């Protein structure tokens, strides 16, 4: 098992006097994609069981998680923009 490299201070790599980098959510641990699909699946289960309020809440949560994942992808340092 390899150890993680030490985290560099924020000032490293910046030109003196340049504005600070835009805040990103790249440091956040991303939500597993498969889990997002499971949240949609749970919402389908609510619809089938006739629980309208739970279905609406589940869909709102799933959509919010998808949007969060989208913002992670657009701002992450990983090459995720495909």
């Amino acid at each position: 098992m390899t150890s993680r490299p030490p985290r560099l201070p924020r000032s490293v790599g910046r030109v003196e006097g340049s504005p600070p980098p835009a805040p990103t959510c790249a440091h956040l641990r991303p939500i597993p994609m498969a889990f997002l699909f499971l949240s949609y699946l749970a919402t389908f289960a609510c619809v089938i069981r006739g629980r309208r309020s739970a279905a609406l809440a589940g869909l709102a949560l799933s959509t919010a998680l998808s949007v969060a994942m989208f913002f992670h992808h657009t701002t992450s340092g990983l090459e995720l923009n495909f």
Partner: protein
Amino acid sequence: MENRPLLYTVNSACMLGLSLVLVGAFYFQYGLGETPCPLCLLQRMGMLGVILGLSLNTAFGFRREHAAVVIGAALVGGSFSVRQVLLHIAPVEGEPTGYGSAVLGMHLYTWAAIVFLTTIAGTAVFLCLIRDEPAGTVRRPTLFDRSTLLFATLLCLSNALATFVECGAGACCENGPCP
């Protein structure tokens, strides 16, 4: 005045049409060996959100809130696909245009944007035709309605399993799990 049964059939047909789009995505994934990218997976989620909004009509009757759910999900999915269109809109000299295969001259993310736009337009038409069912209504769906709902649920499960196989319990990068 009650909603015509034909409207519910059209609603389920729309669900089936969107489900077939997801089946087509599976064909590209397993038939042609094109591993889906992260933004592609997010667009699939947008389509599942639209299908869920339509399935609310199937299960609980037509309501304006359900149409709002459909439009919201289409806007979210549409923004994912428009983002991908914009990422690949300027071709680089010497490199292939766009990302992935093209169908009838357009890439899948462009088709997805068209599907989401059509969904919004179709919902606008539906809003002119439907009447709100009373609160607390629980519909008895027809066999066709139930079949399309079950088909969409199975597709959602298949997508969850396929994504787990592709990326494991983590984020997805271009071709599989992130390093």
